[in-house]
């Protein structure tokens, strides 16, 4: 077997470019590969851990946490509820009573195979670097694509401030 043509070099250069195109497509035009459908409900608070608020779903309905109904609620730990439309990317602020009315599926993966996941970032100088979880952002992660969710945070730490409640049925 002899390499008497430039074909191996052409293929060797073309393959990385093809992968790069796939990455570009999956990042900037995810709707061409996977399109998420439906809505999900989430809550934002300055610090869920400190506030001691536990958002639980029983029989497909969000239950009203005691700390939310009790007065006086510490203003700093006020919880805001939102509905996120995955098709349009729009979010709508709703009241707790509205949130209680929705029938919710709490499974991690939606019917279209999407889940809410933190981002990732590279620490250090490549190749002497490591990939770490980036808690400042949340993504709608499908099998091949990931769309950044435009969510309003106070300090930018999604681990503290963000709680995914469920997919609206």
């Amino acid at each position, binding site marked *: 077997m002899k390499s008497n043509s430039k074909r191996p070099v052409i*293929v060797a250069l073309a393959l990385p470019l093809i992968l*790069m195109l796939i990455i570009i497509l999956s990042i900037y035009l995810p709707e061409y590969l996977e399109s998420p459908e439906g809505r999900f409900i989430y809550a934002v608070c300055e610090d869920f851990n400190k506030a001691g608020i536990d958002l639980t779903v029983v029989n497909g309905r969000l239950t009203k946490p005691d700390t939310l109904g009790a007065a006086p609620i510490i203003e700093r730990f006020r919880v805001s509820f939102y509905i996120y439309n995955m098709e349009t990317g729009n979010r709508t602020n709703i009241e707790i009573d509205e949130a209680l009315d929705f029938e919710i599926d709490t499974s991690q993966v939606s019917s279209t195979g999407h889940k809410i996941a933190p981002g990732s970032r590279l620490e250090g*100088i490549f190749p002497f670097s490591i990939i770490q979880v980036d808690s400042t952002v949340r993504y709608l992660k499908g099998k091949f694509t*990931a769309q950044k969710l435009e969510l309003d945070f106070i300090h930018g730490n999604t681990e503290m401030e963000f709680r995914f409640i469920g997919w609206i049925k």
Partner: protein
Amino acid sequence: MDKKLLLKNIEQLAERGQVSKDELLSAFNAGAGGDRIYELLRNISFSRVLYYIGGGIVVLGIAVLIGQNWDRLNAFTKLLSTLGISLGVFIYGLVLCRNKGHDILGQALFFISALVAPIGLYVLFDITGFNASSMPVQSIIYIILTLWMVISFLKIRKFVFLIFTIVFSANMYVCINFMIAMGSPFLEKILFYSLLILGVSAILIGYFLTETEFSGLSGLLYAVGSAFFLGEAFALCGYPPENNRIWEILFPALVFGLVYISVRIKSKSILIISSGYLMVFILNITSIYFSGSLGWPLALMLIGILLIITGYFTIYLNKKYILS
């Protein structure tokens, strides 16, 4: 006698098994100066290795010196002791390469220059106020380095520039992919796929180089390429509970595909690396799927038998198809 006719005759004799590779080589060596040439080549290779090891130690020394005194150095000294050294050594290498007698020493200096250059550019971007750790800046650093090495290779055609062209362009490629997907939760997968594809490219480039004056690099590219390719394919198999069934099924096929390629292109390194990964895969799959049902003692016996079979076939293929 016409050279083409002679080579044609050798081909025909080889086909009939009337002449062996060793006989041909000994005839060639006898005509070309025999053992004296071997001795000379061995000395050149040995001195070349010493030059490169020396170069590596020099770079290590520079890195330690700068690291220890980083806070005491001002911006100018930082730049001078990194990028300055890289450029200075590069220029001195150019001067030495003009003289054939100092060619190897010149290449050793290029080696030092190329190793220090990334640190130098990192320092340059850092002191000019850029975030040198960010992916766009890292991409720019590797683009500059790749261009530097490509231009040097096209102008001077030295082995060392080809090596660093491949190394820096591979880094550039991964950094650009990271830059495109910055923040995405898929960064790890992107790294796996990028290195997998780079592995294939390395094998293809190695194959292309076999017919060129840089054929000495083919073996290294085959080894690195197959290690990257199978290493990343193995990583994509994942671990429970997030193991990927498709990659688990695909992996043995990829290994046997590479074994076939190793026989076709007569590459011992690809054969050994493929066999090594097959053994690791057997260990992994047995521990995931069979240790529970068969129990560990039986699973270990199964692993042992499969490893012996893999080892036997590796030696068999190597003797029958690659060494012959």
